[in-house]
């Protein structure tokens, strides 16, 4: 499970310091005798030193606020912008878990992320497979094309989708002019536009790990399979697909986690009717000013995501497939 743990760490954005980092020659040379004589475990501070700036930023802007949210989620709401910290309660969680409205939003967020993940992998896999066969230079150009949307602000991207999907947008204009439809289709401010926007935005995070797993595969394996009588389809199903599973798992974990936490795209493309967890957390914290409940929503979102991702990764790397993930 070492590789899947690695994925998890990256997902949470917490880099783990390498445990078997190479020793620093200068430091080793100073006390070679003592080390040999007592076999004492020496802490190598140098890698840690390099990690310090990032660790400080992570602690101040990630660990502290998140821990604070966890704590506040157990406080009582005592009016907009205030809370009662005198005693702990699980009322906020009870409120959430007993409300069909909020559970519906969790379900919607999950379903949306699931669909986006499936679409990203299903569309991204053939793209990766095609890119794998290209030369290094062409591969870079293609990768840039898929990365390019990330150079554009997510708000601008959402506006771009408005131009395409809105009742007066390109799609509706073309279909109306061709006489295929009489009234504009409702393509904006619903699940559809949200899923389209997220899929387009997050596709590259499925493509990159899948491509990496395909490229690292020995091409002779496909040759060997063909030589042993396997058709192209069988070679793909028996050799290429199973061996690219780590890439698929990594890619789907990236996309799923990002979709669960997505805020801007659902807010701009989902409109007022379609709400997701991150939007509820934002609304509770900034409009309703119910910090304890807003915190509880955030914590539920984080825990739910971690559980789903862990169950998924364990299921994928189980049984005979274990060997692929080693």
């Amino acid at each position, binding site marked *: 499970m070492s590789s899947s743990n690695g994925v998890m760490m990256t997902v949470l954005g917490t880099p783990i310091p390498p445990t078997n980092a190479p020793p620093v020659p200068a430091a080793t040379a100073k006390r070679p005798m003592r080390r040999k004589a007592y076999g004492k475990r020496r802490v190598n501070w140098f890698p840690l030193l390099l990690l310090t700036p990032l660790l400080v930023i992570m602690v101040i802007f990630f660990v502290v606020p998140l821990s604070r949210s966890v704590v506040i989620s157990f406080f009582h709401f005592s009016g907009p912008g205030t809370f009662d910290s005198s005693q702990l309660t699980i009322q906020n969680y009870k409120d959430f878990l007993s409300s069909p409205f909020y559970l519906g939003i969790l379900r919607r967020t999950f379903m949306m992320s699931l669909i986006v993940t499936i679409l990203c992998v299903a569309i991204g896999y053939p793209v990766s497979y095609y890119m794998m066969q290209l030369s290094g230079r062409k591969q870079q150009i293609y990768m840039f094309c898929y990365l390019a949307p990330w150079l554009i602000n997510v708000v601008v991207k959402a506006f771009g989708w408005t131009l395409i999907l809105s009742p007066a947008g390109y799609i509706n204009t073309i279909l109306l002019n061709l006489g295929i439809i009489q009234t504009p289709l409702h393509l904006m401010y619903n699940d559809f536009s949200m899923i389209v926007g997220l899929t387009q935005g997050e596709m590259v995070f499925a493509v990159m790990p899948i491509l990496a797993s395909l490229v690292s595969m020995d091409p002779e*394996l496909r*040759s*060997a*399979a063909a030589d*042993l009588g396997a058709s192209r389809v069988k070679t793909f199903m*028996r*050799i290429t697909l199973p061996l690219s599973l780590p890439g698929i798992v990594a890619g789907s974990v990236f996309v799923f986690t990002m979709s669960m936490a997505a805020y801007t795209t659902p807010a701009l493309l989902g409109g007022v009717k379609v709400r997701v967890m991150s939007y509820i957390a934002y609304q509770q914290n900034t409009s309703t000013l119910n910090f304890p409940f807003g915190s509880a929503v955030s914590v539920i979102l984080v825990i739910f995501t971690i559980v789903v991702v862990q169950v998924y990764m364990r299921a994928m790397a189980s049984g005979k497939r274990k060997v692929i993930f080693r």
Partner: protein
Amino acid sequence: MELELRGISKSFAGFQAVTAISFGIEKGELFSMVGPSGCGKTTILRLISGFLTPDEGQIILDGQDITFAPINKRPTALVFQNYALFPHLSVFDNIAFGLRMHTVPRRDIKPLVKEALDLIRLPESEEKYPSQLSGGQQQRVALARALVIRPQILLLDEPLSNLDAKLRENLRIEIRQIQKKVGITSIFVTHDISEAFAMSDRIAVLNSGLIEQVGSPVTIYESPHTEFVASFVGKSNQVLGVVDSVGDGVAWARVTNSMRICFRHDNDGRIKEQLKVRLMVRPERISLVKSSTPNVNSFLGVVKLAVYLGSEVHYEVDIDGYTFIIERQNHKNPLHFSQGDRVFVEWGDDDCSWYSHTSD
């Protein structure tokens, strides 16, 4: 002739890898292709297995043209240089892969795989994964995986080059034994001439996309047809001369004023007076003596270098400005010479082979 290549040519983006190659392989024979890297030997193997298609020429298997047959429909199996075992499949599943692809009934697969594992002497490893095996074991599994589908032609693409020297020598004997036991027609590609000598019925020596010579190991070593073959398959002393006398079965060529070499020929009319010839004699065929014996080829020289190598002694002797390398086995009572000694360098007329010297 079981497999026949007729005028095969192949080029890659302007690089002529193989030019008008033709040869045939008999049933049950182990045929080696040797040559330096880039000589086209691997290309030929890939043309036969179907990973490449030739620009020109035909590949005939049992009278059938398979030049453009798809890879998975050819009765050939390739053993890869880097083994190419499927890392996510156990040894059993690796070997069974080809059987499953050929839709062998499920109940027959197990005994066939067991039989293959016995053949490569790894009966207990079916549950293991390739990463748990040593390099030699992996290559044996790769061999079993190829053999189990009962291919008509077994193709081996430098299967031993990733292994260490000791293992290589053991495995080449083992592969040869298995090949003979199964009786499978095999083509073996290597850049190591000793490997080819140890394993092959016949050898083809290739150089820059052309076949230089095809023959048994003995023929290739003793009677090389070209300068390239002579130097590629072993150490050699080569001198240029002009034929000045032709007799029945023997001829003489003048190399320098004092060096006139006697050599054998086949009376096939190729040897004529005034013909420029290149004469070749292997270092181990030359003897060194203190006083001249009535030998046909006996020349006085000066020892320039004597190196003791244990099982043999390596000499370099200068004769009229020509340096001859000589390897003497370390016999019980060896005559040792040292630098500066005057010695007679001798060999028989049958120790010498010749080929006409193409003007270069």
